[in-house]
């Protein structure tokens, strides 16, 4: 009999153990423990109580566990109690040991017979097994969380690598932006994405330059974003990642997304060099969605790569533009150099081969024309050399401004009356040669683009740490060219009639840039005014000369 009882008890414990370790988490372990213990003991009711609360119960209709009754039964090892609808019930209670916490209680109740000593022994063993299984489940849950987190990070990293690869070999900026948006959506899944850039035309506003997951109509509504508004606006102004969970209920969010019940948004600043130029924003409409720490880290890495890609793409674009400009420059220069040379060669060849057929008048005319073409060629070569000089290190020295201006105007008086007004007697620390060259170009430009009998004025103003040299002439700036275009190579007004290829102002601008000065032009009534601003190393004004 004892053997049979022992055999039965051992068997039940083995089955109990097997059932518990099939459970997936702590709650399932506790539920399985109460359930199997009740079934083994043929008990109608079972419960696990922790600190007076019924964590799991068996046999009662949901929500109808008699907590007080169970707590009363849990206070003693064995008891009898009246249970509504069941009648007289024999109970048994054992402790469930919990690591570093107050023990729980396993309570069983049945209507048939009281619990024997053997059954109490079995129940205590079951409780020990249950305690072990709970601890194991808790440890496993932690391990599973860690494993899940690692797995998530691994998958995100793989997606990030794919995305970065797809960004890295795209050159046009638009393609880079589109790849970043698509990559962001692929990275975190089930999201929409926007890239916005600070708009130069509308200060304080960000404008969408690329998107993924939006219709044209939706894009129109979200095209502009005020700095500081929504996740994207805040990421720009605060220069950090901004995450908004429970989007709809938060203040300061974007109306369009709030109305459509966006669930969460994440935005990061995008840099060009050290400067924030825009934001990358993702959002999700999936109910209850949030971006996990791993996803946030992945997005931060993507934004970093995006910033690098942006800088690289811009650099590449600049290089390509520069290459294109160089190719154009070479093509046009080649043409422009060839033209006068061809004329000269033609005339000299004619004189060489058919001198006897050329009259003295014709000969003189041809020689004069060849000379002029030679001068034209010389001038062109000078311009090219000056432009090249703009990229070389300038020889900086300190010289009185009046001397610099005087040297620049020397030799031009025979061409037109050039008036000097209020040249401040200050010293400038700059490349005097470059200043002379720039002034020379400006005056030549004034001579070329103003009526012959009209005066040209050179004046100066000093103050605020700089001196402004202005060259004024009567005339009109070409309306079809912007200021930037005016200083670009080979750009001339449509009405320009003077000889030249449109390199002078370009060269002047390059030389100005090399001096770390600035050059602009404005229309003042019927006069065009070019202004060269030079920084003053020190200003010592004595008396101005009229």
């Amino acid at each position: 009999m004892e053997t049979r009882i022992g055999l039965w008890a051992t068997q039940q414990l083995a089955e109990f153990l097997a059932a518990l370790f099939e459970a997936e988490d702590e709650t399932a372990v506790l539920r399985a423990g109460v359930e199997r213990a009740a079934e083994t003991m043929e008990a109608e009711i079972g419960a696990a109580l922790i600190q007076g609360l019924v964590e799991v119960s068996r046999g009662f209709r949901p929500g109808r566990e008699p907590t007080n009754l169970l707590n009363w039964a849990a206070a003693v090892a064995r008891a009898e109690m009246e249970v509504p609808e069941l009648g007289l019930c024999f109970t048994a209670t054992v402790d469930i040991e919990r690591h570093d916490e107050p023990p729980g209680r396993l309570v069983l109740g049945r209507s048939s017979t009281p619990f024997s000593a053997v059954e109490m022994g079995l129940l205590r063993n079951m409780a020990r097994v249950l305690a072990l299984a709970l601890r194991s489940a808790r440890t496993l849950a932690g391990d599973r969380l860690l494993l899940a987190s690692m797995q998530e990070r691994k998958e995100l990293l793989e997606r990030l690598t794919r995305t970065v690869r797809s960004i890295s070999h795209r050159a046009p900026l638009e393609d880079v932006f589109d790849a970043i948006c698509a990559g962001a959506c692929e990275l975190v899944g089930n999201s929409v994405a926007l890239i916005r850039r600070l708009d130069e035309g509308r200060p304080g506003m960000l404008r969408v330059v690329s998107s993924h997951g939006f219709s044209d109509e939706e894009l129109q509504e979200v095209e502009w974003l005020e700095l500081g508004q929504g996740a994207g606006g805040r990421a720009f102004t605060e220069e950090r990642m901004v995450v908004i969970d429970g989007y709809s209920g938060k203040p300061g969010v974007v109306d369009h997304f709030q109305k459509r019940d966006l669930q969460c948004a994440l935005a990061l600043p995008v840099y060009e060099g050290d400067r924030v130029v825009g934001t990358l924003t993702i959002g999700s409409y999936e109910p209850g969605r949030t971006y996990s720490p791993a996803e946030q880290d992945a997005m931060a890495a993507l934004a970093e790569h995006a910033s690098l890609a942006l800088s690289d793409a811009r650099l590449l674009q600049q290089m390509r533009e520069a290459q294109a400009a160089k190719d154009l420059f070479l093509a046009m220069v080649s043409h422009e150099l060839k033209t006068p040379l061809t004329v000269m060669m033609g005339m000299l060849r004619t004189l060489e081969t058919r001198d006897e057929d050329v009259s003295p008048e014709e000969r003189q005319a041809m020689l004069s024309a060849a000379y002029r073409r030679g001068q034209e060629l010389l001038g062109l070569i000078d311009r090219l050399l000056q432009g090249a000089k703009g990229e070389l290190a300038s020889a900086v020295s300190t010289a009185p401004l009046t001397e610099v201006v005087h040297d620049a105007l020397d030799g031009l008086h025979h061409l037109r009356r050039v008036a000097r007004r209020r040249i401040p007697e200050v010293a400038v620390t700059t490349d005097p040669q470059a200043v002379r060259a720039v002034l020379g170009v400006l005056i030549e430009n004034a001579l070329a683009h103003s009526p012959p009998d009209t005066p040209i004025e050179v004046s100066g103003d000093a103050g605020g740490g700089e001196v402004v040299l202005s060259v004024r002439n009567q005339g009109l700036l070409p309306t079809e060219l912007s200021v930037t275009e005016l200083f670009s190579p080979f750009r001339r007004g449509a009405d320009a009639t003077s000889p030249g290829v449109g390199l002078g102002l370009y060269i002047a601008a390059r030389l100005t840039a090399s001096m770390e000065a600035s050059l602009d032009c404005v229309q003042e009534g019927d006069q065009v005014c070019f202004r060269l601003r030079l920084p003053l190393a020190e200003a010592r004004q004595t008396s101005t000369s009229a």
Partner: protein
Amino acid sequence: MESVQPKTPIVRGGGERWLGVGRSLLPDSRAAGAEAASGALDGDDPKLVVVFCSDDHELPELLAGVREHTGGTPLIGCSSSGEIASSGPQDSGVVVLVLGGHGFAARTAVATGLSARLRQAGQEVAGVLEREDPERPHRVLLLLTDGLAGDQQEVLRGVYDIAGFAVPLVGGCAGDDLRMRQTAQLCDDEVHTDAVVAAGLWSTGPFGVGVHHGWRQVGEPMLVTASSGTTVATLDDQPALDVYLDRLDAPEVARTDAESFTRFALTHPLGLRRRAEEPDIRFIGEADFEARTLGCIAAVPQGGLAWLMEGDEQSVLEATDAACADALRPLDGRPPLGLVAFDCIARRGVLGGEGIRTEIARLAALASGTPVAGFYTYGEIARTSGAGGFHNQTLVVLAVG
């Protein structure tokens, strides 16, 4: 058409209740359903119809035939491996049981997709008895399930999750004449498979449930060294199928032919030690000749002990008497309105043709001449105490008081 003698409506506590049983062996499905239903309608105000039928019939047609007479009365039913009526057992037929009168109230429910969600399905159908009826204080939940859908104990756990200890459970698993391919469950106007159907029944009179099987342990126990759910992989660290066949000295044909194995295993179940004197029986429904495993109709826990079981006509019939006596006990000596029997097909295999007629006759006698209905099942359900309730190769008797 056969029917028992006219019943006297029982008046008790202001309520009138009656129970009728009809049967048919007509080959035409619609006609068979109509004949059986007509035979069962022994009074006005039918409250619950229960149909046990062979799946040789066209079940939608059979159901339509039943409905011709019962109309929209709540209905549950299932396919069988033979039916039971007062006149005796039958095959390829239909038995209809009807409970009626003001003293009864009933609701039905069905949960499909059973094999994928055993516990959840049990929870769903248990809701049918959620409310209490002060006018009809006695209640029982009648369950008919697809025994081929998986661990039936999980279904009962789901039922218990919702119904709790206050509701007795009784019922059985549908059969398909030992083909072990597909069974059917009926609910109201629809035929289902892979489902559990339930009828919540309230009454002014008591219900009694009795459970006994009559199997004996043979030899020394075996340790279930590897099992998963209802599949036993190894016994005493040896392939379970080999241990089973060798210990029983099974005939050669049972070692290679699936159908022969099932018939052999019918009379040689496994027994699992439980607290009660009678071990739990596990019906072995199939064998995997490749994997050398045994497939049971309910879970066989790993780590437990299992015995080979045997039975004979005497032990089985004694179990019949005991089950019936336990079912009648709550009626306090009053005759029942009728008995409903859920008898495992395996016990039929032990009793043989003559034996099952004897068994039914004993049931009818113990029922004091009141109607008997039931069917041969692939598993039985009975819970009046404890928290379990699934049985194999057992007789469950419901006495309607």
